[in-house]
């Protein structure tokens, strides 16, 4: 298990994931390089969340091949969990701890310093008042940002975000886009899902579309080249 310095972070070849006998992912192939910011687009039920969970090592690979950050998911998907940060529909926060305490707890586990915590909170625009509010009392956007701060503190190499823009107003969404772009500049790779058409195109150099559990289009809008 090695971290990849500039190289392929995700490689899927005809990956199939079965949830309760149903092929949620029915043969997806794609390749993502380090530092890329990729939007995963598709209607509900097309396998976007499942693809993220596969890359996070949370669901077993039924067919095909999948390698994430050098780890073969068929062999040892548990090992990839430490390298990857998944933000699903839930944020992984403790409701009774404050925003700062939640992030600080993560920092303690990974051996990061209190400075790293302050740093992360600042990068996410979390002010002092929010930082000392109980996570249970925060708004959806603030909870998202707390969870993202934890990802930064963890120095996760791959960020997998499931509909991170959902429930946020326009200003908050734009802020989120800035944060995600920043993250890629610091060396992380970001893959997020969305089911909005224009959002994907505007904010991201690369859009991958899923239909019926398979990848049906892969467009880099910067160069306008379909792959």
């Amino acid at each position, binding site marked *: 298990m090695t971290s990849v310095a500039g190289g392929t972070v995700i490689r899927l070849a005809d990956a*199939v994931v*079965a949830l*309760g*006998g*149903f*092929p949620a992912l*029915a*043969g997806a192939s794609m390749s993502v390089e380090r530092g890329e910011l990729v939007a995963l687009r598709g209607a509900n039920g097309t396998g976007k969340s499942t693809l993220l969970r596969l890359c996070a090592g949370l669901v*077993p690979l*039924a*067919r095909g091949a999948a390698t994430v950050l050098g780890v073969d998911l068929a*062999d040892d998907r548990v090992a990839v969990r430490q390298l990857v940060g998944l933000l699903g529909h839930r944020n992984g926060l403790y409701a009774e701890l404050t925003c700062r305490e939640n992030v600080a707890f993560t920092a303690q586990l990974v051996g990061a310093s209190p400075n790293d915590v302050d740093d992360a909170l600042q990068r996410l625009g979390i002010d002092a008042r929010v930082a000392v509010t109980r996570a249970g009392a925060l708004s959806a956007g603030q909870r998202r940002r707390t969870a993202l701060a934890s990802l930064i503190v963890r120095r996760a190499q791959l960020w997998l975000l499931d509909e991170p823009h959902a429930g946020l107003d326009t200003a908050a969404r734009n802020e989120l886009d800035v944060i995600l772009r920043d993250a890629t500049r610091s060396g992380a790779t970001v893959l997020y899902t969305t089911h909005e058409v224009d959002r994907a195109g505007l904010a991201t150099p690369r859009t991958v*579309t899923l*239909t*019926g*559990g*398979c990848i*049906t*289009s892969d467009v880099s809008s910067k160069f306008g080249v379909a792959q």
Partner: protein
Amino acid sequence: MTVGSTGTPTTRVIGALALLITGWVVVSAFFITPADSVQGDSVRIMYAHVPTAWIAYLAFVTTAIASGFSVARRHRTLGFDRVAGASAEVGVLFMAMTLITGSLWGRLTWGTFWQWDPRLTTTLFLFVTYVGYLAVRRIDTDPRQRASRSSVIALLAVLEIPLVHFSVVLWRSLHQEASVLNTDGDVRLDGLMLFTLFSGVVAFTLIFAWLVIHRQRLTTLSDLERVVGLDAAIIARRAENSAGVSA
């Protein structure tokens, strides 16, 4: 093993032998062996009770060993896990029979349905533990996750059951009357009774083997069905895509 049934020449032989020997045991137990001088005819329950108790513990050991192998070789094969599960199901059945026959025997001999002696009490705990184990097996649908979770539970049971037995023995030793309440302790066994008892053990072991083999084959088939079903579902889903759903 053809897909129509889970029988093979081996299981047919085992089944036939089991039937034969069980037939002999029944005849012998009821008609040929003598009644006990103290207990009378109620001693005949022993021919059912002792073998079922033996099988209950055999099932426990089988599940434990199979689970151990399942943990050690979990990347290779699920066969051990299937055997563990099958053995547990059959085992729970025999544990229940042990408890029922033991209870009836006690009732007939001493007028009470239950004694808190170590063997019965430990069997009761074994029964409850394995009911729990079977409940855990139903949690996961993916065979590999099922194997992983339930083998841990089975191995924990291996730790638990001796601890339970040991503490129950210690506990009952505080109550002086415990040593007397041994239902088969004061039955003198002559040659024929011993032989019938032994045949009963053999017969029940064969029944156990027959049931476990069939049960784990059933599990293999249903796991196979999931695999085949998945392949079909994948093909169907891809066909939907190329049939022109918007890209």
